[in-house]
């Protein structure tokens, strides 16, 4: 069973969100990186406004390309440039050094619309069945 930290929030499309004040850090879950396999390329999004659910970057493994979706409304303020040279960090440390970008959210309360760890665990189990 893949690790699902209890302090994070989760999307249907397997992004995780860590909200600190009005800054949300976004990455993909351990379950998602496991499905995709060895990561070879990360296309980071441009800085600027995004709406929840819009494409904001791509992660590509040897096997396939997978779009990243913005979990919340807001403005992307920083991307993890280190992934340009070391995309495999998304595999080895998906919740730490493998983060994708940081965004300044419009409304921090929106985060409660995302799944908590328990709900996401259930979803992952359903998907695996």
């Amino acid at each position, binding site marked *: 069973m893949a690790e699902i930290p209890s302090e994070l929030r989760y999307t249907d499309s397997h992004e995780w969100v860590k909200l600190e004040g009005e800054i949300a850090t976004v990455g993909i879950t351990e379950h998602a990186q496991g499905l995709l*396999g*060895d990561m*070879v*390329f990360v*296309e980071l999004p441009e800085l600027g406004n995004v709406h929840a659910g819009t494409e904001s970057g*791509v992660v*590509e493994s*040897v096997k396939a390309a997978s779009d990243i979706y913005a979990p919340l409304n807001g403005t992307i303020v920083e991307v993890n440039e280190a992934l340009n040279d070391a995309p495999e960090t998304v595999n080895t440390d998906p919740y730490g050094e493998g983060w994708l970008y940081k965004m300044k959210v419009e409304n921090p309360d929106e985060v409660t619309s995302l799944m908590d760890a328990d709900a996401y665990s259930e979803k992952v189990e359903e998907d695996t069945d």
Partner: protein
Amino acid sequence: MTKRTALHPQHLAANAKMVDFFGWEMPLHYGSQIEEHHAVRQDAGMFDVSHMTIVDVEGSEAKAYLQHLLANNVDKLKLPGKALYSCMLNDEGGVIDDLIAYYFDDTHYRLVVNSATRDKDVPWIEKQAKGFDVAIHERDQYAMLAVQGPNARDKVHQVLDQNWLDLLTALKPFQAFCAGETIVARTGYTGEQGYEIMGEAAFVQQLWQDLLAKDVAPCGLGARDTLRLEAGMNLYGNDMDETTSPLESNLTWTIAFEPVERNFIGRNVLEKEKAAGIKNKLVGLVLEGKGVLRSHQKVVVEGVGEGEVTSGTFSPSLKLSIALARLPMDSQEQCCVEIRNKLIPARIVDPCFVRQGKSMIEKEK
């Protein structure tokens, strides 16, 4: 219900991620397909290829029949155990499948065809046998293991019958050693040294265990694909199929037009195609910008026309993206590939990227 090979328990014991591969439950990887890839380039890896279809052709007219069925000429096979790569074409000159034919004697050959195309291959092979004194038998009792890498032959020698050692050491590429139900062939799909070994299930299961004890890495379908693509070897269904000509698939070398009187299936169409001028070619691409080449991406060759990526991947050995692509015949040197609505520059190269651990694209830089 998916089918399982004799090595299924071994895959589970090695923590394989199993997937449905055209009706067979096969290992995709055992943790990291990139590590498996490097094991084959740097040491030795093994692949379960028992899902491939084995068809024996026996009878007084076996040779004449295969000279009709196959685009390459089995008359090139003189030594028992010698193998030949060939296409099997339809009446329109399209590729039904690619295969390896093994020669035992003029009345007995063995074909190894793709498992994904088994359901169309076997009826075609049987249909074409009408009028020839041959019997066609599928041999599904055998398991098959490919052992590949710079140390693969040495490690196989250590675990097989020591009485076979001199004969195995002397084997040339595309030659096989046969002992009873076991065939050890110097063939493969990785661009490395190694063997493909056919035998009874219990023998191949024991071989797997013995090679595991010699640190031969189990490798899945994922690594098999990146290795064959680096080696510039075609994958049936991606790089050629029933709608493509072998002459536009970098397979002209496998078509034996001599002797002219040998009337193999598809010959007339290929001759007309040659006379009219071949329009496309299958080339290698090396991506110069960021991204990963994937099959079906559009390729734009400025001033010439458009083509398509047939197989693409990230090359673990070269650490950049490579592909096979079908492009207009006049395409030279440079092109652009459309990736997510952006045109990314790529270099056109011979379709062979890595051989025996060495990059083949450096010299062109």
